Every structure is written in C-alpha cells, then in structure tokens.
C-alpha cells in the first residue's frame, strides 16, 4: 500500500476551445509560445511526460474533444511540481493571456487524477476523468487544484477498481 502510494504520479488534462484557428494571426502569440513553453515543461523539476502527436512537437493538432478544442495531457511527480510549472514559470504568461485566445469554459476545463508511476494515460482515459469531474464534481477519481486529493486518498477509494494495465 505504502509502496503504491509512493509510486503514484499525477496526471493532468486540460482542454481549451480556440477562438480562432491556429493559423489565424490573432492566435500567433500563443503559437509562438508553444515551443519555448513545452521545452520549459520538458526540463521542469518533477515533469514526467506529455502527450505529443506522432511526428509532431506537441498535441495541438489532435482534436479528440472537438474540432476547435486543443488538449494538453501531462504527467507529473507531484501536484506541487505541476503547480510550479503552470503558474510559476513562463507558462503563466500564456495563462494570463488565455482570454485573448480561448473561449471561457462554463464547465471544468482542467482535471487532475493519480496514476501508478509508469502508466501513461490515454486520451480516452483522460476525457473520461474530465467527464467524471464535470458530472460528479471533485472526488479522489478526478479533482482540481482547488479541491485536491492525495495519492493515499485516491488509493483508498480506488483500490477495487484501480486500472492495472499500462
């Protein structure tokens, strides 16, 4: 039990609905930030993995949640590592300007959940967690920064249905 808690990583999905297509000049400042910010993520303390499209530098061309919805799927060692990257790095500048590029979401647009270390979440699994959060509110299965759960809490709740396959 203790070992499984220590071997947990935090998965993160967020979705963002573009106000304009990615090749529109109005989105250019965001597109210019993609490479430097992704490079910063790759080198950030506690970074484990991020989804990229095969043969591409990022996941912006994958549109599993809608034609104009870009997704960001990552795994981190701890919530603190993810928080520091999201809000205490060059990524904050992209967040600050989010209203210039993305629609305001009425529903949750970010979901966090624990995965066994080494497990790389699939897009389907990630969208399920977002749907879970939207339908049932924060729980150890799917939560947010403001309503966070520890890996131990998640392990306790998820023991019987813990996903085992990578």
């Amino acid at each position: 039990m203790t070992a499984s808690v220590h071997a947990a990583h935090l998965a993160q999905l967020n979705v963002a609905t573009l106000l304009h297509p990615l090749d529109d000049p109005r989105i250019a400042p965001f597109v210019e930030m993609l490479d430097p910010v992704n490079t910063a993520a790759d080198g950030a303390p506690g970074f484990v993995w991020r989804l990229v499209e095969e043969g591409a530098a990022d996941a912006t061309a994958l549109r599993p949640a809608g034609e104009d919805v870009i997704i960001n799927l990552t795994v981190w060692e701890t919530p603190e590592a993810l928080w520091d990257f999201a809000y205490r790095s060059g990524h904050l500048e992209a967040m600050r300007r989010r209203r210039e590029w993305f629609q305001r979401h009425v529903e949750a647009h970010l979901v966090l959940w624990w995965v066994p270390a080494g497990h790389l979440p699939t897009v389907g699994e990630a969208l399920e967690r977002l749907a879970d959060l939207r339908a049932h509110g924060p729980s150890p299965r799917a939560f947010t920064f403001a309503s966070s759960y520890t890996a131990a809490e998640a392990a306790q709740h998820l023991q019987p249905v813990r996903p085992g396959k990578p």
Partner: protein
Amino acid sequence: MEDIDAIAALQDPVRRRLYEYVVAQGREVGRNEAAEAAGVGRTLAAHHLDKLTEAGLLESGSRRLTGRSGPGAGRPAKVYTRARAERAVSLPARDYRTAAELLAEAAEQAGLDAGLCAAARRRGEALRGSAAPCSGLEEALAMLAARGYEPHLESTASIQDAEGAKETTGEAAAVVRMRNCPFHAVAERFPPLVCGMNLALLEGLLGTDGPVRARMDARPGACCVVVESSKTNIH
C-alpha cells in the same frame, strides 16, 4: 499564538531590527550574522531570535555552516528564516480577504480578466500620482518597497559587467525582482487572474512608455513580475 500577540512581539526595537534583517535577506540567517546586523551581542540576539520563533514570526533550523559532517565537524549552527504564515490584525475586525476571494472567484468564472486589468492599471496610475513615468530602477525600488513587494536588484548574468558605469547604462545590467507578493493568498487560488491584475497594476504604477517596464517572469516562491530597464532586449 494569536496574531495580535505575535505582532506585539515586535514591539521590542532590537527584536524588530532582527526580524527585519532576517526578512530582508530572503535566505537562512545565522545568529552571529543577525547579531552583527542588529548591533547587539550574540547572546541577546539568540534570545530575541528564539522569541521571534516562539511567536511564529520566524522559523528556525540547524545547518553546519562549515559544510563538514561526522565527528569533529562541530555543532550545527542555528539559522532563521521568515515563517510562511501570514499575520494580520484589524481593529475593528474586518475581513477583506474573504471579500477578495469571493470577488476573484466570481471574476474568474465570468472571465472578467480584461476589466480587472483595466481597473488595476488605472489604480496603478493613480497611485503613481505624477504624470511622468518612473524615472529608473532606483525609483522603482522605492515605489515597490513602499507597496510591500520587498524588491531587490538582481544582476543579469548574460549582460557584461556594467558596474561603475553611469546610471543609464548601469541599469541595463540589473533587474528588480520582488520577494513578496502582496496578493499572495488570492494569487495562489487564481494565479492567471490575480497575477495578470498585479502586472497591470505595476504597469500603471511605473508607466508604460518610460525608462523602466514591468514584465511577467514568474518563478517559484516570488512575485511573478520583474522590472527592468526598457532598453533591455526583448527575447
């Protein structure tokens, strides 16, 4: 300890000097160093530093300052840093924090970033109280210190040593960073909204077309904004 008791612990002038010195360093401070800075003996400094720790204003730890370990390395030295907890007293009781959190939550949900930033920029301009933009990094340091940001100059390694050069060129070799976020509690809960507000406030305060400018450059544990000479290249 109640906030009012913790704050009352600072009434002693020696204690207050020690507290302010430790806070201003932004790192662990040993007893000898603090005693010297406050102009008192080591024993008296140690007594007051421990009182400040008891009051919850400082945190103490121990560190071997020599870097050696094992037998013969000597006793670890006691070191002090500012405690993370916030202390506030309002008479009569006021609760602006709950108001700020609720307003921020509503602004976040409604997507009011642009309106908030416009208000913050106007407020910054009003606080500046002069038509002229901030004249340089020295003035920026004073303005930011007055607003509780705890600014300090940090030399930028990438720029050649300009020490001793005249003010105008010397400024390019340094940026102002801030140890304290005056909006910490709400900024932690709604970072893009509140950090954006903070940047707009500082842009208004310093002026946007003057010799210095504010720009976002967030780092862990510090204010998200950096102030630099406008001549510094944008990268």
